[in-house]
């Protein structure tokens, strides 16, 4: 990708980015609406869902949007999903969450997943160490903080959304769910930018650099430990950590560290331009930015050239 070398010279103040052109690039233009826009619904008996307004006096085939976002059609149900809104949970979604509160009395954790309310993870919905299925004892209740403490990040699956909106999570099924304790960093983006795919855990195309793309817009970019010891992460005591047990830091070079920052900035660049975020798009930006330093990836010259290229390709 060509970045104008003259304009990339260090200029701290710049006029606001012109984001107008990028809007049709998220989805086909017909699928994007602003409040008041007409949505054509030629079928009979359309079901009008969230973000749709229609009164009896209106033309039955024209609906009006009340939100800015993408039109979603599931059979006859038409809804508008706002792309700056909060995450709407669906059963089976893999999400990344941050523990907000530990409640040993009610045997549950409260987890922030960028939804309208905090999700609930009960003690019964986690995998105990050793992967043994057994009754949860009083001792487990007292040890809840040693499983997940406040501010810890976890990967979990939405188990159930109750009628009152309570979101139940579980971390049981896979090895990969549970506490995110590899060396990594956390990025939050608007949930509407992330598409539901079956692949929440993915490699970013750089050796050992992986990401968890939570459908809720929380993303964890991390260095995977070797595949062989994935079941039990390698524990080693580091001199700097003064007795705190931490997973082994893989021997990484400075260029690895820069690739790490590059991956983070790739996600942020996509989110700043409101492009959809998937493993492919992160990999694309990661590759496209190879000629510049990671720190220049969030500067206007790169962003505007990225915008041009992405608009052209879509």
């Amino acid at each position, binding site marked *: 990708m060509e970045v104008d070398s003259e304009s990339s010279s260090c200029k701290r103040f710049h006029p606001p980015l012109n984001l107008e052109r990028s809007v049709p690039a998220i989805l086909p233009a017909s699928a994007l609406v602003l409040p008041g826009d007409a949505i054509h619904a030629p079928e009979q008996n359309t079901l009008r869902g969230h973000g749709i307004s229609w009164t009896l006096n209106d033309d039955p085939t024209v609906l009006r949007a009340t939100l800015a976002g993408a039109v979603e059609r599931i059979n006859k149900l038409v809804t508008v999903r706002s792309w700056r809104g909060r995450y709407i949970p669906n059963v089976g979604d893999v999400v990344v969450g941050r523990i907000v509160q530990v409640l040993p009395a009610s045997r549950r954790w409260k987890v922030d997943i960028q939804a309208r309310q905090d999700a609930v993870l009960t003690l019964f919905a986690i995998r105990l160490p050793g992967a043994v299925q057994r009754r949860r004892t009083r001792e487990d209740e007292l040890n809840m903080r040693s499983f997940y403490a406040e501010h810890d990040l976890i990967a979990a699956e939405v188990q159930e959304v109750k009628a009152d909106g309570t979101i139940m999570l579980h971390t049981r099924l896979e090895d990969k769910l549970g506490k995110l304790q590899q060396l990594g960093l956390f990025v939050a983006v608007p949930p509407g930018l992330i598409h539901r795919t079956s692949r929440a855990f993915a490699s970013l195309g750089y050796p050992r650099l992986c990401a968890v793309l939570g459908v809720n817009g929380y993303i964890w970019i991390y260095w995977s430990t070797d595949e062989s010891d994935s079941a039990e992460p390698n524990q080693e005591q580091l001199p700097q950590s003064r007795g705190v047990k931490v997973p082994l830091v893989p021997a990484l070079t400075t260029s690895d560290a820069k690739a*790490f920052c590059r991956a983070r900035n790739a996600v942020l660049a996509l989110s700043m331009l409101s492009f959809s975020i998937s493993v492919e798009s992160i990999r694309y930006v990661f590759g496209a930015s190879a000629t510049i330093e990671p720190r220049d990836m969030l500067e206007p010259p790169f962003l505007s050239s990225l915008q041009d290229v992405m608009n052209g390709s879509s």
Partner: protein
Amino acid sequence: MPADLSHVEKRNILWLLREHGVRIDGRSFSQTRSVSLQTDVLPSAAGSARILVRGGNDVLASTNTELRQFDVAIDADPILKKGSVGFSVEFCGVASPEFQGRGSEVVEVELVSLLESMYSSSAEFLLHLVAGERKLASNPSVLRVCCWEIYVDVLILGASGGNIVDAVSYAVRSAIATTFVPAVFWQEDALGGSWELDERAECCHRLDVTHAPVCSSGAFMSESFLAERIGSEIPELVVPQWLILDPCAEEESLAGCTISVAGTKHRQICAVWKSGAEPVSLDLTLEATRLCETECALLCDEMDAMLVDMDRSDLDEP
């Protein structure tokens, strides 16, 4: 509003700093983020500016002006003839739920007091706010001075990017720089005379911000948080190891303390402000102040160049 980080994230940030000398967004220690600046956003205000810093800082500043006249003795110290600047800072409750309620009031008061101390100690800037002076015919030993009073309203629409102090100071300075004031002249009349305004476009001019300060902040990062986890040991005094300029939210929440220096283009320090509990040695503080002071001068130059550019493009367009 700094975020709470998990233990792994903290370790990762420190690991990048310690082993590789990079920050999580790939910047070097002394590199600041680029800032998007937009001026004249509010047509009803005398001057306005909006600052967007990536990561979520969004600050809107607007100015209103008022004339004030007072009498000084004709041989009085010229320092007495000066205008004044007043500030109000508000976190916009509609913009984000975290600003609702009274939680942000402490930060608002702190920011106002910082801005007030910044501007009240930049004497040259205040001297330039004098609009006119006139010897009174009735009393020759008295000088009647007319000066501008500027009221700056700052509205914070987003503060999730960390380092809100600098963003506010950029917004205030650029809002003042875009403020148009009319010419002021003395009109003699039967009652003695009064100050009159000439609001013809060719007589209006922008306020002079050559001596207005801007703020530059740095955060001291240390590994002291690793010591906290050990209950039995008495935590020893940890010397902060790295100074980073323009900390982002993650770095800010991990920093032992931050230092904000307000300086002008001519490298005059107007205010120094430290927040955070961690002690810092005198040498480090001096070094940090010097670094921030240089940064302030650069910032002022770049901001002025940008404002001149924008003025020029405004003229070209019609």
